[in-house]
């Protein structure tokens, strides 16, 4: 039974801290470009840095600004890669049409 108390205490501390982070992130939320969020969601989110960026978030910004290409991402799965490329194509096409109008 003695082993349970430390586990519970540690769990409780973790729970309280997690709750606090959640509150802070709500309170200090920064409105960002939704397109970046969407692209970041389609990346593996390992933050491995193999693409040359500091993390998946920076890579997503690079992709959106056409400063990087999807194949820079090494750990991405084949299906996810195809989906992401299609998504980017769609994004850029929509952008082009908007600028033409």
């Amino acid at each position: 039974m003695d082993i349970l108390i430390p586990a519970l205490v540690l769990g409780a501390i973790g729970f309280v801290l997690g709750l606090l982070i959640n509150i802070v992130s709500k309170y200090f939320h920064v409105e960002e470009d939704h397109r970046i969020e969407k692209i970041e969601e389609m990346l593996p989110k390992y933050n491995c840095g193999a693409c040359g960026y500091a993390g998946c978030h920076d890579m997503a910004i690079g992709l959106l600004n056409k400063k990087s290409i999807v194949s820079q991402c090494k750990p991405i799965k084949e299906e996810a890669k195809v989906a992401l490329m299609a998504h980017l194509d769609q994004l850029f096409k929509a952008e082009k049409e908007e600028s033409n109008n």
Partner: protein
Amino acid sequence: MSISALISLAFTALIIENVILTQFLGICPFLGVSKKRSSAVGMGMAVVAVILLAGIITWTLYHYVLSPLKMEYMQTIVFILVIAALVQMVELIVKKISPALYKALGIYLPLITTNCAVLGVALLNIRKDFGFAEMLVYSLFIPLGFLLVITIFSMLREKIEMAPVPKAFKGTPIALVVAAILAMIFSRFGGLI
């Protein structure tokens, strides 16, 4: 604890036992974010906030939760948990308040989690058996020493950028030489108290 003892402790923490130059903790941000004075000061401020908060929270947790439950052996895990959560919060707050600083600090901001100075101060507070006032003074003046040294160092590095340094020494090597000389100077303060 008398006031003069606290002042002496503050002076010790600030200069004589300086985190970077005599205890050699927190070297990573010291070398990584000291190229520009503005980002160095920003980093120093972030470290002051994190260490002070982490010191207070970990000390309170240790004395009112871990110690009564006889789970002092869990201190390292609990302290790391607290520090990681604090850094996460500081990152969110910096992102909101100062996007420029957030960009300048880049990957070094989440790396405060692994800044050994933070865990070091939290553990030293316990090992040195500090009371609340001593803990408060120690966890305020240790990071202030960090801020002091990283500011001096970044000003030196800004000057060195312009100096005619041999090609092989450009960048980090000359920075390490400068850091070594600074450490030698700081080690001389040891005779003051």
